[in-house]
């Protein structure tokens, strides 16, 4: 492994999840170690069946915009979030679920895709890993 990337996934928007998972996968493909911290609306997407549920951050238009973007993505042969997540896990990417978010949003560990989650953590875990990381992003 050469280097480390840590990403905070605070947004649950579909487009931002794409950004996060593509960067995560890209960093793993470059031989880096990667951790992603899911908090707030990002954590909602780790619920069972929740990955593809997020709106577009812009031009959502009650779902019409998202439908159009998804169609364009299909034509361009863009991988689904589900596949990107499977690849991320297969390449050894780590996922940390935010403890506090689970508490304030009433999310139980069993509501989440536990097979994806490596650990539950708080801010200290993020800071500890980010302090010697080469890439640290807030998405």
């Amino acid at each position, binding site marked *: 492994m050469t280097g480390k990337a840590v990403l905070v996934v605070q947004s649950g928007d579909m487009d931002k999840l794409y950004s996060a998972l593509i960067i995560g996968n890209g960093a793993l*493909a470059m*031989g880096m170690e990667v951790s992603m911290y899911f908090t707030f609306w990002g954590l909602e997407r780790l619920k069972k069946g929740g990955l593809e549920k997020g709106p577009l951050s812009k031009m959502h238009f009650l779902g019409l915009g998202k439908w159009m973007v998804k169609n364009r993505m299909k034509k361009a042969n*863009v*991988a689904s979030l589900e596949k*990107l997540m499977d*690849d991320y896990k297969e390449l050894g990417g780590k996922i940390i679920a935010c403890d506090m978010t689970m508490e304030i949003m009433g999310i139980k560990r069993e509501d989440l895709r536990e097979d994806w989650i490596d650990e539950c953590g708080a801010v200290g875990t993020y800071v500890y890993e980010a302090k010697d990381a080469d890439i640290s992003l807030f998405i």
Partner: protein
Amino acid sequence: MAEIEIDVRGQTCPVPLVECRKALRKAAEGDEVIIVGTHAASKKEIPMACESMGLEVLGIEDKDTEWKIRIKR
């Protein structure tokens, strides 16, 4: 020593990079990974990934819009 061929023709970012990495992880030392694709940016980025992992690129071939990269594990 085995040759592992992967076909990512028609696939877009980040699939070529990811599939390449998956194949390299599965390959044994000394194996050759051959990846065929059409995604233009990946032709540049797969060698970049190899460089950052200290792997040797044995060759890059071009044919029309298609490229083929050979990597030594």
